[in-house]
């Protein structure tokens, strides 16, 4: 039996505003990537995508700031007055800000469109990649495995595409099917990787399954169901992976904060 005098600080440190942020950053990064592709292809919808990306980035940053325990200390300015490229959060912050700036230039049709589009591809990818990186670096938390480096960008892009399909951007439907299947495969691989891992990983998987296993399985099922409905029911086919991706990502973020050392 283990008892404590005073307790280790092993509680939840990322609560619901962080989960909202992880969904918004996926929407923002994915929309920024669509904007970049539209710029490179001279798509007439470029301006719409660019404005939508700016709104989503601004909303995401607002949620991050408002949900931060240091919101009223206004210390976030230090993100942009320091140089720490080894930190995923620093990279993500700059990725979002640069994406917003480039989207603004594209929306106003200022400067070389193809150059801005090329740079925007990179900054949008940074925004999509950073959540997975932020978790994968924590080797002490067995549920945050290196597989998240693939799972989070793929599901992030899926969330943005699914939302676009729901908003009647039907030309994205074929991409949606591929990303849904890739996300479901990565989700299943994530579980298999934990199940076949060392003792700590298996214990963590048992903990994960106990708290959110059925919901995670439901999320994977929604991802798998989407491709079959794309031609007949495109709206539903867009909604299913949107819910599935948000659900699976949120469960990994929330339950993944578990660390066996604490208790």
């Amino acid at each position, binding site marked *: 039996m283990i008892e404590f005098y005073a307790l280790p600080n092993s509680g939840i440190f990322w609560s619901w505003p962080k989960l909202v942020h992880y969904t918004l950053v996926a929407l923002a990064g994915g929309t920024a990537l669509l904007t970049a592709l539209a710029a490179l292809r001279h798509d007439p919808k470029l301006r719409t995508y660019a404005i939508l990306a700016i709104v989503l980035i601004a909303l995401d940053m607002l949620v991050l700031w408002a949900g931060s325990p240091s919101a009223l*200390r206004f210390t976030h300015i230090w993100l942009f007055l*320091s140089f720490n490229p*080894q930190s995923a959060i620093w990279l993500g912050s700059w990725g979002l800000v640069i994406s917003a700036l480039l989207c603004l230039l594209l929306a106003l049709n200022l400067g070389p469109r193809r150059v801005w589009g090329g740079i925007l591809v990179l900054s949008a990818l940074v925004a999509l990649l950073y959540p997975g990186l*932020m978790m994968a670096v924590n080797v002490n938390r067995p549920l945050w495995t290196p597989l998240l480096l693939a799972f989070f960008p793929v599901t992030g892009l899926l969330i943005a595409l699914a939302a676009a399909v729901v908003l009647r951007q039907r030309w994205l439907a074929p991409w949606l099917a591929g990303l849904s299947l890739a996300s479901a495969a990565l989700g299943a691989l994530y579980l298999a990787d934990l199940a076949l891992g060392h003792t700590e990983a298996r214990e963590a998987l048992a903990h994960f399954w106990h708290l959110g296993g059925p919901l995670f399985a439901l999320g994977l099922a929604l991802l798998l169901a989407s491709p079959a409905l794309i031609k007949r029911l495109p709206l539903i086919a867009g909604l299913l992976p949107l819910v599935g991706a948000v659900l699976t990502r949120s469960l990994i973020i929330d339950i993944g904060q578990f660390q066996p050392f604490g208790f």
Partner: protein
Amino acid sequence: MPRYAMAIDLAACVGCAACSVACKLENEVPVGVNRLWIRSTELGTFPHLTVEYRPEQCLHCANPPCVPVCPTGCCYIGEGGLVLLEERRCIGCAACIAACPYDARYMHPAGYVGKCDFCEHRVRAGRVPACVETCPTLCRYFGDLDDPNSTVSVALREAGRVDVLRPELGTKPKLFYLNTPAKFGLAGNHQEVVS
């Protein structure tokens, strides 16, 4: 430059928690969070039983995973190898809390991260940390690892076996445990303390 470290003799620790109380008072640690706590674990099987009282706090790792993840550089390795925080630059992102394998960090209600700093303000003034000074059984040793005559160096040299927490993570802690139950074959199923 010194390389500060601490060693705790678990055979001498009686779990009185005076160190925890002293830490709270010295550093004005808010209610509900802790820089230092005591883990008591029953170990062994009858008739070879013991209770381990293990004080835990920031281990001031030589290879701290909390430092590189900080996006503003407010978490850094300071003078003497202490892992320190510059509160005015902290954005409360909790990346360092996520990275700490020892649950040693907490979110201060004022919106920044807090943790044990080996009472840096006292060390700078030539004193030992409050937990060391207050321990009634003198089970804590503090000093410079590079000074062979410091109390911590002597204690480590004479211990025979030195344990650290979660060595498999490669963090190279500078908080050492002496005379752990593992030394006497009573580690039970607890894997944290390994030579």
